[in-house]
Each structure stands twice: as C-alpha cells, then as structure tokens.
C-alpha cells in the first residue's frame, strides 16, 4: 500500500485562497471540491432572492461539477502496475477519532465511474428541472443540488460512519422533492418510500455499531481498516443481513421493492431521473463496496439466496411491466427488473459478472433516464399516460419517435447498444457461477424485448388517437408545466423541442459509444472488481491477500 500514499493520489489545488475556505484548516483536495461544490451551490441559492439567479447558480454548479468529475475520470490511474485495490484522490481528516469516525473519501475503479455518472445525471436532471418545474423552482433546485452532494458522498466515502451520514442525507431532499412536487398520490408514495428506506438503514446502523464494537474502527481501507479485519463468520452472517436489507430496499430487490413503483410513478420527472438512475445504484454499490468485502464468508453463504430473490424479482417485475397500461409504470417495472438482473451479477461473485454489473449500472442509469424523459415528453403532447388512449404519435413527430427508439433498443439490450455488453457480461459471469440461474435470467431478456416493443408500438405506431382535449383545456394553472402530470395546461404542439432533444442527445451518444467501446469502462473497473472477488473468495477470518491502498 505504500506506493499509493496520499501524495500520489491527492491532486491538490494549491492556491492559498482554498486554505481559508476549509473548515479542517487544511488544503482542499480536488475530490472534496467535487463532493461539496453542489452543496455550496445550494447554500448560495438559499441566500439568493431572485429565482433566475438561482437557476444560473444551479446549472453552473452542476456543470462545473461534471467537468471536474470528468477530470477525475481522466486522471484516474489504471493499467499496468496498478493492480490491486487502491483508493485514489484520497482525502482524510480526523473527525471523532475516539469513535473511529473520520472524514475519508477516495475513489476506486467502481466509484470513479459512479461519481462521474452522478455528476452527469444530476446535471441533466437540473437542466430538465429548469423547464419542467414552474412552482417554487428555486427550492426544487436547492434540494436537487443537496441531493447531488449526498449521492456523491455515498460513492466517495471510505469511512462507514461518513457513508451512513450521506446515505441518510439522501432521504431528506428526496422526501421534499417527491412530497412537494410529486403527482396526486405523492404523500402516500413519500411516506412509503421513507419508511421503507429508513427501516433498512436502521438495521445497517446496528450493524455499524457491532462492527465498531468488534473491530474498533469504521475506516474501510488501510492496514487497520475493516476490510483487512473481517469478523468471525457467525457475526458476519448477521451483519451481512443487516447491511443487505438496507441495500436490497434501495436497489430494490424483490420482495423489498413495493415502495418503488409508487415512488417512481409519483415522482416529478427531474427527480425520478435521480431516484431511479442514481439512488438505486447506491444500493447496488453498497453491495459491492460493503457487503462483499466486509462479510466475505457471509457473501458466499447468502449468494444463492440473494440470487434466487433477484431471479424471482426480475421475472416478476418484467411480467408486471407487460400488463401495465400507464407508460410511467411500465418504465418503473422495467427499471426494477433490470436492477434485479444487475444484482444477480453482483452475487455471482466473480470479476466478469461484477464488471458487467457496474457497466450495467451506467447503462441502466442512462436508459432509464431517457425513458422517463420520453414518458414526460409523450404525456405533455397527449395529455395522457395510458397506452390504450394513445397511438400514432410517430406519424406527426418523427424526431420524437426516432430518439425514443434508441432508448427502446437499448432497453431491450440490442447488440450495438452498451446495455448488450453489460448484460452479456453479467450472464457470462453468472453462467460460471450457476448455469440454471443464468438460463432463467435470460428469459427476462425476452420479456424485456416484449414490453419495450409493446411500449413503443402502442404509443408511436398504430392508429392516431384523439387526445382527451377536454382535460387539457380545463384548469389552466400557471404553476404547472405540461410535464407535470396530470397535464392541466395546454398541451405541447408538434414535434420534440430543441431543449428536450438536448437532454436526450448526450444520453444516447454515451449509450451508443459505450456500445461499441465498453473497454474504457471495463479497463478501469477490472482491477477493483478482481480484487473484490479475491477478497470474497480468500478471506474467511484472516487478513486480505490484496494490497489496500489509500492509507491515511
């Protein structure tokens, strides 16, 4: 671990001004800046009175964060001589050292991608909010920026306490984003979402206490860290369950998913991009970062159980997606189905399937955001979200149809889109683990094709249906935009607008590019995932066989 000391990893912004802004009286590292930039934007937004200024601040903060995140991605070191599991750009400060609590952030090959993804999707969500939310836009944007910092913190934390803080901090902005700006049944959806997720995370909290009582630190890496000191197998089993329930609810794994369709359906579109595109990834990331390396023996012990739950979940959600009439619910169930497949890949416990899972996290985030945007665009033009009362949209709106088509294809894992590469790797890895699981999982690919094509055909093709105009003309409410369902304002005429297309294009470009070139992702992922699977398969109770970089 010696070669990867802080000096190598931390890229410091060596201006004296930065020193004074730090509450820890040390210099700010790039990673810390990336983490807190959106929060700083939120605080500035809170102090500003004018809504237009807040809009500008939010876009600037999100875009600057995206640029810095891409810089992180480019500077991330991988390849020869970088074997093992290291945490780069590390930044560590003592916080409450007697309790093993520290402020320690860093990136490995998995989290560097998720950080970049978070910055990208938050940027898109914040841009979408500019024209999709008309009521109390200022507050909405402030919550979105806060949520971005919390998400980044979840992916960056290298201390379990810090992780838990960010994990729970995600809930507060989510609560308001869903509760204030959601659709009719928002209050019900909010309470269900919150009670479910807190239920899970409180168990994780008990797990954290036990880990601290047993190991005496909450730092993840380093020679004294939690990864290097697994607890005894019996305790591992209990702790694994305590952590897994939190992650399974967030992911959501069947049967802990019931909050998700309601929450996804009732969310405002910019928030559902973050909720389904990023927060579900936090659950999957939790499995990879915490459950596998901290409880290796238990992971092996419970792998079959979780795999079976995932298989049931993916088939179940795909079947439900087939019979929904509300297009937002179709997309919601397809998201749940894909996330369960992704989770199956994680518990195959080998590097190939892990690579596939992480790659699929990126793809799924891009696809599901594109599809939820499509739902909003369609509903804004037809005034309805019910498949039977729409049809023939593509006749008049070719651009909408073709761009939508890209996401439909990616959603059904067509070769050439990146989701094919991801699912292929997952299935390949799962075959190595258990051929039966993989075979059943393949069924969902067929089901995915079925419901995706149904979604496309019934909305874009077929006879032109007349939009329920009387609904559209009644109740002009200036505080609602056409994107907020039920659509009360005048419907949008014509084909897709430029600003709508601009949200879609980057998603589609990345999807298609990664479809042909998945190596840039897998190359960075692979050393980390290999190291994780080595940890999972080698330690029972002894120390790790791999180097753990990023020391204090």
């Amino acid at each position, binding site marked *: 671990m010696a070669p990867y000391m802080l000096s190598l990893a931390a890229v410091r912004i060596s201006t004296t001004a930065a020193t004074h802004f730090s*509450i820890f009286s040390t210099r700010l590292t790039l990673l810390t800046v990336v983490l807190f930039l959106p929060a700083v934007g939120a605080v500035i937004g809170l102090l500003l009175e004018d809504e237009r200024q807040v809009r500008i601040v939010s876009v600037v903060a999100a875009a600057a964060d995206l640029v810095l995140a891409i810089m992180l991605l480019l500077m991330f070191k991988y390849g020869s001589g970088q074997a093992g599991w290291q945490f780069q750009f590390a930044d560590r400060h003592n916080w409450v050292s007697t309790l093993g609590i520290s402020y320690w952030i860093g990136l490995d090959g998995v989290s560097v991608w998720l950080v970049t993804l978070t910055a990208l999707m938050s940027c898109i969500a914040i841009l979408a909010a500019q024209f999709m939310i008309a009521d109390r836009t200022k507050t909405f944007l402030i919550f979105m920026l806060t949520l971005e910092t919390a998400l980044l913190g979840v992916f960056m934390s290298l201390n379990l306490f810090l992780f838990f803080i960010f994990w*729970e901090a995600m809930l*507060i902005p989510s609560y308001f984003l869903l*509760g204030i700006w959601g659709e009719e049944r928002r*209050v019900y959806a909010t309470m269900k979402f*919150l009670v479910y997720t807190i239920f899970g995370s409180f168990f994780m909290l008990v797990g954290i206490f036990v880990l601290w*009582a047993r190991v005496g630190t909450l730092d993840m890496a380093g020679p004294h860290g939690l990864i290097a000191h697994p607890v005894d197998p019996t305790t591992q089993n209990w702790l694994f369950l305590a952590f897994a329930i939190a992650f399974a609810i967030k992911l959501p794994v069947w049967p802990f998913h019931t909050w998700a369709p309601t929450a996804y359906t009732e969310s405002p579109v910019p928030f559902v991009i973050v909720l389904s595109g990023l927060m579900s990834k936090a659950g999957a990331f939790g499995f990879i970062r915490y459950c596998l390396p901290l409880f290796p023996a238990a992971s092996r012990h419970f792998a079959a159980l979780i795999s079976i739950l995932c298989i049931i979940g993916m088939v179940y959600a795909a079947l439900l997606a087939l019979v929904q009439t509300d297009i937002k619910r179709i997309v919601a169930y397809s998201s749940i189905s894909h996330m369960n497949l992704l989770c199956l890949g994680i518990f195959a416990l080998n590097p190939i399937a892990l690579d596939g899972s992480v790659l699929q996290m990126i793809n799924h985030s891009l696809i599901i955001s594109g599809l939820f945007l499509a739902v909003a665009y369609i509903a804004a033009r037809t005034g309805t979200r019910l498949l039977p009362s729409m049809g023939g949209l593509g006749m008049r709106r070719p651009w909408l149809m073709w761009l939508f088509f890209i996401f439909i294809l990616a959603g059904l894992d067509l070769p050439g889109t990146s989701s094919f590469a991801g699912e292929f790797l997952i299935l390949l890895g799962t075959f190595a683990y258990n051929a039966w699981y993989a075979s059943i999982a393949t069924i969902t690919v067929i089901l995915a094709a079925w419901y995706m094509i149904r979604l496309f055909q019934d909305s874009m093709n077929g006879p032109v249906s007349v939009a329920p105009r009387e609904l559209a003309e009644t109740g002009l409410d200036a505080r609602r935009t056409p994107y907020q369902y039920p659509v009360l304002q005048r419907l949008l005429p014509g084909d897709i607008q430029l600003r709508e297309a601009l949200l879609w294009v980057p998603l589609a470009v990345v999807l298609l590019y990664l479809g042909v070139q998945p190596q840039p992702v897998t190359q960075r992922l692979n050393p980390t995932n290999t190291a994780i699977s080595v940890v999972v398969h080698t330690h029972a109770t002894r120390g790790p066989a791999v180097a753990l970089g990023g020391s204090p």
Partner: protein
Amino acid sequence: MSVLAAATIHVRVGASDWGAVGPELILGATVLVLLLVDAFVPRRVREVSTWISLIALVAAFLDVYFLWSHGDSNALYGQITSDKFAIFFDGVIIVSAVLAVLLSESYIVSSSFDPGEYYALLLASAVGMMLMAAGNSLMILFLALELLSLSLYILAGFERSSPRSQESGFKYFLLSSFASAFLIYGMALIYGATGSTQLVAIGHCLHGSGCPANVTENPLLLVGIGLMVVGFAFKISAVPFHMWTPDVYEGAPTPITAFMSVTTKAAVFAAFVRVFNFSLNAAHSHWFPLLWGVAVATMIFGNLFALAQSNMKRMLAYSGVAHGGYILVALLANSPAGATAVVFYFLAYAFMNIGAFMLVSILESNGQVGDDISSYRGLWQRNPFLAGCTTVFLFSLAGIPPFAGFFAKYLALAAIVQAGHTELAIIAVLTSLISVYYYLRVVVVMVLQPGEVQAQETRMSGMAEMAVTASVAGTIGLGIIPTGFYNLATQSVDALRTAFGI
C-alpha cells in the same frame, strides 16, 4: 463521622466553596431581585424582568465557562461539586433557560401573565436543576429536586384562567410528590445500608468490603435501589410512570413545557448517572434488569402512544418519553462511553426539543391554534422560515443525519452495543422507525399539504426569531461538527471517573 463530631470541628466555608456554586448563586440572587422588581416596579415597565433574567443567565453562563477549568469537585464538605460533569449540565440548563426566556417574551404579552413571578419561578427551577446536577450527596439531590419541582408545579398551573393548566399543575403536584416520597424512602434505606449520604462514600463502601452489595447480606440496599428507581423513573417519565406527562405537557404554558421537557430530564439524568453508574456501580447486576425492563417498555410504549396523537404537545410529550428510553439505554451501558452519550444527548436534545415546541408557542403567541397538528396546513407558505426550522427539529428528533439527534442517538447505541447488549440497540432502532412516521407526519401536514389561500399571517417577535435561529444552528452544528462538544462530554465523564475512582 457522627453528628456530634461535626459539632466539635471548626466549620469553615471559604470563598472557593461559594465559588463552586457561583452560577446557582447568581441565578438565586436574581430570583430575589425579580421578586422585588415585581413588587415595586410599575406594571407598564415590567418587561424589564425579561432583560434582568437574560442578563443573569448570560452572567451565569460566563461563570460556568470560568468554572469549567477552575471547578472544585469537593466544595461545601463534599455536599456539592462543581466538577466538569455538573458544569456541563449547568451549561445545558442555562442554554435551555435562555431559549425558554426568549420564547416566553411574546407568549407572556399575549397571555397577559405577570412576568416577574414567571421569570422568578423559571430561574428558581433552573437553580434547582443545576443543584441537582451538582449534588454530591443524597440530601442535596432531594432538596434540589424539590426546589425544581415546586417551581415547576406553579409554572405548569400558571395560566390561572385555563382549567387545563390548572389540571396540569395539580396533577403534576400530586403525582410528583408521591414519587418524591418513594425517592426519599429509597435514599433513607440506602443511607441505612451504607452508612452515608455522600455519593462518593457510598461508592467506596460498596467497592470495598464495608458494605456488601448482594441481596442476602444487604437487602436494605436493594430495596433502596428499587425505590430510587421508581422515584427517578417518575421524574424522567419512564414507562410505567409516564401517565402524567401528556396531560401536564399539554396544559402547561408552552414555553414552560419546552423548558421542563428538556431540563427536568437533564437534571434527573445527571443525578441518575452519578448515583447509578458511579456511586452504585458495584450493585450493577441488581439495578440492571430493573432498568432494562423500564427502558424497553419506555421505548416501545412511548413511541406507540405517540403514533396516535393529533395534538402536537401530547405527541411531543410521548416522544419525550421515548427519548427518555434511548437515554436510559445509554445509561444501561454502564460505561464511560454510555455516560458520555447521556451528556451529549442532552446538549442535542435541548436544541431540538425546545425547537420543536417553538412552533406551538409562536403560533399561540399569534393568537392561533398552536397544538392541533392539522392546523399546520400550509405553514410552508405562511412562514417558510418557521416551517423549515421545525422540519429540521423533527428530522433531528427522528434521528436522521446530519442533525444533532442522530449523533446523540448514535453515541447512545454505540455504547450499548459495545457493552454487549445488542438487543437493546435493535429495539431502539425499531422503535425509532415508528418515531420517523409520527414526526414526519407533522412535516407532511406542514410542508406538503397546501393551506387555504387567505390564511392568517404568522409573525415572530425578534426574540422568538433569535431563539429559533439559535436552536436550528445548534441542531445542525452539533450534527455536522460534534467533535468539540463530544470531547467536552468525554472530559466531563472523566471528571466523574476521577472523583469516584472508577
């Protein structure tokens, strides 16, 4: 040492002895000043008593700050101590009193109270609480408890025209004096069993061979412990001695409810830690099962009863019961970490719980209905600042990071898990889950449900605004940067360990 021997020695009480109770003396003298002000100053300039109280509290706080490094742990013949543990609680009590005074100002105007008596009683009860935290002998603990209780009985019934307030004061008086009787009976038996009322001496006696700590050889001790548990459990409104809490909290003037909900518990828990975790540490195996049951029942029933409330004050009363349960869990850890958690918990609890009551008080000062949760609809539009701050307090009470309540609960549960009682931690988090539901239901009404368009405006006086701002700053600040105060809490417990040699 017999009474006669005490008579023959030269009794000397020096300046340092009085210095050790400096904050109490400052506030006690202010009580007298306030009474004279009330008697002589004409009615129209009575608000001067608000300022006198505030200045006295600030002066007392400065003295507390000074005593932190110059305390005397053995003042007044070991009766009263100003060790860091007591000083920390003094600080918490003074801060709570300041918040209560800031909140009371507009409340007093709107309900036309007599400010002089009101503040005099408030400060007198604060003196009682501080003495309780500083009491190093059973006698002082009892006297302090009576001082704080008597003042609070009157304050709870201060709204003379309201039958509810009358009921509140009278109920509190009757039931609490009953509990005091249990307490003093228990203290008497412990004196009988150990031969001393000094806590340190009792501790030494039990640790050495002087007084056996098992039931067959020393049954008096155990009966005494049982009776003291009853007395203390009543004062911290632990289940099954909690019945008075919702009625008293509901009827009392809201600033008083806010004040007593935090500080009585703080004072009694300070004594609780001193007596049970330190003085009676050797009898741990005897009081542990008793308090285990009380803590579990408190967490479960406090939270379940809170679920059913539609009145904010009653809901917060039951939530206070539940929080008492979490603090009992920290106490049950019977370790320095647990005691530290108790200390830190009260600092966090002072800001967030008084903060949560502020909404009720401010609405009532506006002449609106304050304690009916359904009347909060649309508060987010009427007064976004107040609604936002109350949201922070409720999130913090629910134990959601990054607020103070989370870190406090974290410390408590970490201590109990470390002590090997994971089952208590699991019960605590499961019951916290229930609490999330009822706290957030208030936020749902306040923030998510729109109100009528022509709603009355909700105004805040400058002092109330200051109180809300201070509380929200405390709640967020203690959650994000707890290190400094956590270290102070550790030091305060270390002082106790030195004093008791544990």
